[in-house]
């Protein structure tokens, strides 16, 4: 890993409840390069949100540290913008007011006009022109999340942290918002750390997909490199020869291996999380312990073999 823009170094989270100590996750190591879009997938309770909150500086690890751009995280920062699952708009402020609040927090000496113009440009960017004076209660779920995205982008952060940003939206709205987030992130070269439950969303958006085992005691099992090219269209995803390979690999993990991973792999080294490349005809592992071949499952089902080439 040449460029470690974000480096998660051995973080753990434990909760003390009287005599019993619960370890949500332990010894998590992960590096994210600048401009990379990383999605974390795992079941509820594995501590994904806690990891994100630690990255945001809203929570602190029981052990270990996170280093961003050469500096350890010691609390929330304007360099790291968070898009909350529940959008978390301030309901007493208008759309413009919500975005302007973020803008004026970042540039405290800007005057009102400058703040307003800057906020307006980001409202326009997410396609909410004309709704800037509405209150959040007058907006649909998708529009609210757009405001959340505009608010996060308006402070021009180095990193965007998204906690299942689209999970509360209907499929159609989710699709359009994914398109826009992808467009904006590509245009601005954002480094993104996103949590999701949606495998297709991860394949569409991410460069790397991090698979997390079930908690308590969750670990990062694999980093799946997205084999799809950077130029991808949502409608064309499933036509890509490697799409089903990746998808099936992730779903296999979620369905069965996420439960048994820790017991199957006692020698799993949390510092060297295997990087999985879905290729044809089979998987190759480029890092991690060489002998630990991740068994290829995706083509083992006769009759359901994925198309090798389509175009």
């Amino acid at each position, binding site marked *: 890993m040449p460029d470690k823009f974000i480096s998660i170094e051995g973080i753990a989270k434990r909760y003390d409840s009287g005599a019993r100590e619960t370890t949500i996750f332990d010894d998590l190591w992960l590096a994210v390069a600048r401009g990379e879009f990383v999605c974390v997938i795992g079941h509820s309770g594995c501590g994904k949100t806690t990891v994100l909150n630690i990255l945001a500086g809203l929570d602190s690890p029981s052990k270990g540290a996170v280093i961003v751009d050469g500096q350890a995280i010691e609390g929330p920062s304007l360099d790291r913008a968070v898009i909350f699952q529940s959008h978390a708009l301030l309901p007493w402020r208008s759309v413009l007011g919500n975005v302007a609040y973020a803008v004026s*927090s970042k540039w405290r000496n800007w005057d009102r006009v400058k703040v307003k113009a800057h906020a307006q440009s980001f409202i326009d960017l997410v396609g909410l022109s004309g709704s800037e004076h509405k209150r959040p209660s007058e907006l649909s779920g998708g529009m609210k999340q757009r405001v959340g995205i505009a608010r996060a982008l308006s402070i021009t952060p180095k990193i965007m942290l998204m906690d299942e940003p689209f999970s509360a939206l209907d499929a159609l709205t989710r699709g359009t918002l994914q398109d826009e987030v992808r467009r904006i992130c590509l245009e601005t070269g954002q480094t993104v750390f996103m949590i999701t439950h949606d495998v297709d969303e991860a394949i569409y958006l991410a460069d790397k997909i991090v698979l997390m085992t079930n908690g308590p005691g969750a670990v990062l099992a694999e980093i799946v490199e997205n084999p799809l090219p950077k130029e991808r269209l949502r409608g064309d995803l499933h036509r890509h020869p490697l799409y089903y390979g990746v998808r099936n690999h992730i779903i296999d993990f979620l369905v069965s291996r996420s439960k048994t991973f820790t017991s199957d792999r006692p020698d799993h080294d949390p510092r060297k999380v295997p990087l999985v490349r879905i290729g044809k005809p089979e998987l190759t592992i480029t890092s991690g312990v060489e002998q630990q071949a991740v068994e290829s499952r995706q083509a083992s089902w006769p009759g359901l073999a994925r198309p090798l080439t389509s175009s």
Partner: protein
Amino acid sequence: MTASLRLRAGIVSILLLAVFLAAWHLATRSVGPATNMSPKYAKLMGLTATQGKSAMPGPLDVGAKLWEHLKRPFYDNGPNDKGLGIQLGYSIARVMLGYLIAVVIAIPLGFLIGMSPLMSRALDPFIQILKPISPLAWMPLALYTIKDSSLSAIFVIFICSVWPMLINTAFGVASVRKEWINVARTLEVGHLRRAFTVILPAAAPTILTGMRISIGIAWLVIVAAEMLVGGTGIGYFVWNEWNNLSITNVIIAILLIGLVGMALDQILARFARLVTFPE
């Protein structure tokens, strides 16, 4: 539909008022000379015995007297004969003063309690014990320490209106949604700015509810307090008119107390509507 409902409700209200006034009028009207008695004796006995008329005035008497008061609300003929406007003014001024002192103390203190779990627990026993004390029970203590009856009344207003505001502010501040605080934290908003831009607006509806309860209690208590301390105010007026056996004036005072109380409540309700946000 709603307009017609309002109209119908208004008509029913007016009908109820008319029925009440008619019943009142019939119940208190004069039934004519009760017995034959010597004119001298009749003069001694007064109208109650001679005319069969109740000492309770009828609505027409009250209306006439009210009109008299409304014509000159601010006259001042010495300590025991002041216009109703002056008396109400004294009461409102005392309520406002005691209430404002309570606002100034209860809201910052409520903020502190709401923000700090330590202070919340530490102050809880005091609040629990002090809250149920009838404000009038403080009166002797206030009179002894403050040595001024008018200030004591203000103190009593303060002590009765401080609790609902304190408790509601603490509750409102403590229950501000975590995600709103997190938004402010990720934006590196400082503590003071966070208190004014996130916590205060988020807790404002709850705080205003507390303030509305408080003004209601303060207005209830001022009447009783003024009956005790005497001198001026609508409470004193009620007691003075009772000593004068002027039931008419007592009824007028009751009516005005109700109207002013409603007005105070409506003012706070309007403020509450300003700060309420739909989610």
